[in-house]
């Protein structure tokens, strides 16, 4: 088979604990250098936290795994300082075509809402994503990665978790004040701790083929229901970097995966799908089954589960790595506050609550897609085919066609960390909402709102002319920084410059005002993970302090 990617081999270094014959003690240990463990490690290290990351392997993700990385994930990766490379390398697409039997029934153009930095999603092989994350991790001196270090035992006490780690030079012991578990769907650590994960296996198999196209092929997503070349099943095709195309064939349950995987069986199938004259070469073929399940809670004392170890979804809608990276976005600032003694450990319960809610939404959406694509009964299939039949001519039916919904972030509308609105606002930026992006103008040129917020609590305060901000308000805004949990005030304005000590963001296109329903005096309290914590029509420092306390379980 062809190879468009050279797998890096990361060096194993003899751990100092073995060299010096002692036990190690770290404030945070993360197990698993997949996309999720890496994102957690980078985020913590950027916050100034010393981190040790362990992985049993010495390269990036092998073969066909994640492809689609959604806008919110890219925004988190921007905050971590590594999305640009991925967007450059990845493929952005807008046109999707849906086929039913012999015919194309409709196509859509995603045509993203204007004035957002990042596209709805990019397609990129998971090994590139991980490679970029590892490069980013290596820029951070307080982040140590140990490859070929396998965790073989975990126990936990009230104040720490203890790990037994095996290497080529023997085993050693590590104590961790906090342990982040990112060891993937099989999660050996979950098993070691005797914890359960509940859900169901879908009685279905998918053949995943990555092929290198020799000639031009459009950058579009094609989805077939019941095509002539693969009767009664579905097929998905989309493009990744390097002219590699991902093809997912639904196989059903009663097939022999080993037989299906053989090139002599795969190649004719792809030929009948692409037409005889398109040349291609196989890069990778594998067969998967999928599960939808999650743990009851994601935090267990000193042990915090993130990513696939905590929850898994079926593939439609591309939510695995996307939701895992969003777990870390939610967890890291909370853990840092707890470690710094600025918030009680109960703040970590809200990590579990908020991300279980998001996991349920992801499981719901991908289960719905799976049920549409693979109807479970005759009547369900009749409805599915009726929707597809009407879709060609009727917009309402097109909206019901579900071949996978775009992975989008959850609105944490019911989170206990929110302060409820006491005034009326239009739009979607309710407490618990992930912030909408918008272009802004700073002294450094045109930038993005989401590039200016994050990593700390911030208060966005709106006034049309920043230069007109009165002295008392300026003082009040500046005073927010003087607290154990500092709040950085930022003035958002159409024009002008805020008084000394306050940053100004110019809403040159008016999009911030529009998307956040801003009026003079409107103030948004923003969490370090770029979610709305509270908002008011006028600034009241005392209320801001109460809302910060609430958002950090200090109330």
């Amino acid at each position: 088979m062809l190879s468009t990617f050279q797998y890096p081999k990361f060096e194993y270094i003899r751990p100092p604990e073995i060299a010096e014959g002692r036990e190690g003690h770290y404030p945070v240990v993360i197990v698993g250098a997949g996309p999720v463990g890496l994102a957690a490690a980078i985020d913590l290290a950027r916050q100034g936290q010393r981190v040790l990351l362990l992985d049993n392997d010495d390269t990036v993700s092998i073969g066909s795994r994640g492809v689609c990385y959604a806008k919110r994930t890219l925004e988190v990766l921007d905050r971590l300082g590594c999305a640009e490379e991925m967007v450059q390398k990845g493929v952005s697409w807008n046109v999707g075509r849906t086929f039913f039997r012999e015919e194309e029934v409709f196509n859509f153009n995603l045509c993203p809402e204007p004035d957002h930095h990042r596209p709805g999603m990019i397609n990129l092989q998971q090994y590139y994503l991980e490679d970029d994350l590892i490069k980013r991790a290596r820029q951070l001196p307080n982040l140590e990665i140990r490859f070929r270090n396998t965790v073989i035992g975990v126990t936990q006490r009230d104040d720490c978790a203890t790990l037994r780690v095996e290497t080529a030079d023997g085993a050693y012991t590590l104590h961790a004040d906090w342990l982040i578990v990112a060891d993937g769907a099989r999660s050996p650590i979950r098993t070691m701790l005797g914890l359960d994960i509940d859900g169901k296996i879908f009685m279905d198999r998918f053949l995943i083929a990555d092929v290198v196209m020799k000639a031009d092929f459009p950058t579009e997503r094609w989805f077939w229901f019941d095509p002539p070349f693969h009767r009664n099943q579905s097929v998905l095709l989309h493009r990744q970097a390097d002219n590699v195309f991902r093809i997912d064939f639904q196989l059903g349950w009663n097939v022999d995966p080993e037989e299906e995987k053989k090139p002599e069986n795969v190649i004719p199938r792809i030929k009948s799908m692409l037409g005889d004259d398109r040349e291609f070469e196989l890069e990778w073929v594998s067969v998967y089954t999928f599960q939808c399940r999650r743990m009851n809670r994601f935090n267990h004392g000193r042990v915090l589960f993130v990513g696939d170890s905590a929850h898994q979804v079926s593939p439609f809608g591309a939510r695995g790595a996307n939701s895992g990276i969003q777990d870390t976005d939610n967890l890291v600032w909370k853990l840092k506050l707890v470690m710094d003694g600025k918030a009680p450990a109960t703040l970590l319960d809200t990590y579990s609550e908020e991300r279980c809610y998001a996991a349920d939404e992801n499981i719901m959406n991908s289960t719905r897609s799976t049920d549409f694509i693979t109807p479970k009964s005759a009547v369900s299939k009749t409805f599915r085919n009726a929707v597809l039949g009407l879709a060609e001519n009727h917009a309402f039916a097109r909206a019901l066609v579900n071949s996978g919904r775009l992975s989008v972030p959850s609105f944490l509308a019911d989170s206990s960390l929110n302060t409820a609105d006491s005034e009326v606002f239009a739009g979607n930026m309710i407490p618990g909402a992930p912030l909408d992006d918008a272009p802004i103008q700073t002294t450094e040129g045109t930038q993005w709102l989401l590039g200016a917020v994050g990593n700390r609590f911030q208060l966005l305060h709106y006034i049309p002319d920043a230069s007109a901000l009165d002295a008392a308000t300026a003082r009040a805004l500046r005073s927010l920084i003087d607290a154990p949990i500092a709040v950085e005030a930022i003035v958002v304005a159409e024009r002008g410059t805020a008084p000394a000590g306050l940053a100004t963001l110019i809403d040159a296109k008016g999009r911030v005002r529009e998307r956040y329903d801003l009026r003079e005096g409107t103030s948004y309290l923003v969490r370090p993970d770029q979610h709305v914590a509270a908002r008011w029509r006028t600034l009241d420092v005392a209320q801001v302090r109460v809302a910060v306390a609430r958002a950090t379980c200090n109330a």
Partner: protein
Amino acid sequence: MALNTQPNLHEPGKRHFRAFSSGDDFYEALIETHRELTDEQSAMVNARLILLLANHIGDLSVLREAMHIAREGV
């Protein structure tokens, strides 16, 4: 009134942040209505459902248009 074939599903009192959510909520509820029924029972449920909805819509010109589209191409 003409038959509305634009996306029109919504749920009073429920806030949806995504365009696909109300349609997907409906579709799930529809399939759920048929859970564990035999094909014959399902056909009966569908017939009753159409009768209930037709009465709710009331306007025969709308219903005639819907019946016409439903039959087309089947």
